[in-house]
């Protein structure tokens, strides 16, 4: 179980670096969504199902949609 959680955290770190460095904003949004999704699984394993639900619904679902709507109205490249 520890190995799986370590894997999740490593994925989060890689995705966060990708989101920070990527020039394509859509790419960065997808990487942010991946961070939130992994974070919600980690929260579930840490016995915090309430936070996991909020993180999955808001972090992985809504904020990505809002970012994509905003990119749609502006420019895709940084």
């Amino acid at each position: 179980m520890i190995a799986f959680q370590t894997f999740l955290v490593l994925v989060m770190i890689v995705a966060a670096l990708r989101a920070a460095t990527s020039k394509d904003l859509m790419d960065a949004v997808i990487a942010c969504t991946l961070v939130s999704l992994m974070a919600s699984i980690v929260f579930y394993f840490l016995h915090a199902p309430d936070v996991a639900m909020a993180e999955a619904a808001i972090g992985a679902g809504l904020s990505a949609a809002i970012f994509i709507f905003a990119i749609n109205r502006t420019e895709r490249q940084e």
Partner: protein
Amino acid sequence: MRTVVSLTLIVIVAIGVIVSLSQVPVGAEAARQEGRLDQDGVNFGRYYNSRAVEETGATNVVASVVVSYRGLDTLGEVAVLFIAALGVVTLLGTKQERKAKREVEQASLIVFTGCRFLFPLILLFATYIFAHGHLTPGGGFQGGAVTASGFVLIYLGCRGRSVGPKQLSATESLSGLVFVMIGLVGLALGGSFLLNFLPRGTTYALFSAGVIPIIYVAIGLKVSSELGSIVGALAGEGE
């Protein structure tokens, strides 16, 4: 000169606020005064875990902390979300200039039908989350976010349909009013804001825990209408 005067006034007001706030007991001091702290130190986590179910009747301890013990903070949190939604809607609410800008492409029949089929199921699931917030994990904020993702699905898959802004604002105001009114009724009946004045009922039953489920349903409706209006303003209504 004016700068000096205004700076002095700000300093005086700040000192007054600090002095009056330092009289209010918070944290460990408040617990010691109310006698719910054992001698060897602070442990609010242990206190809530051992006593919350019998004190509030809610089996989800997180719900009893969010709605009952820290209900006033939740009211502030919902107000912050309301102000954020207000800002987004005010900023993007001018829809006249964008009217002729782009032609909307309809989604394919499969996507359209799928979205129409899934939307009521998502709403049902969200209602389950916030109506059972006092029994199982989840609650008003989570249910509201799930409702808003259902709205996203409608805006993406069924172009041309939108959630009515008037209905959203009516729901938002009514649920906020219910939240504050319940708090005021508690103040009138028992002397403290958001007092749990209804009977606790049977633990694990749907209608239990007094005012907690009512407040959680109000929070759920309020959060879903606020997030829904943000999504509606960004996705562009009235195309």
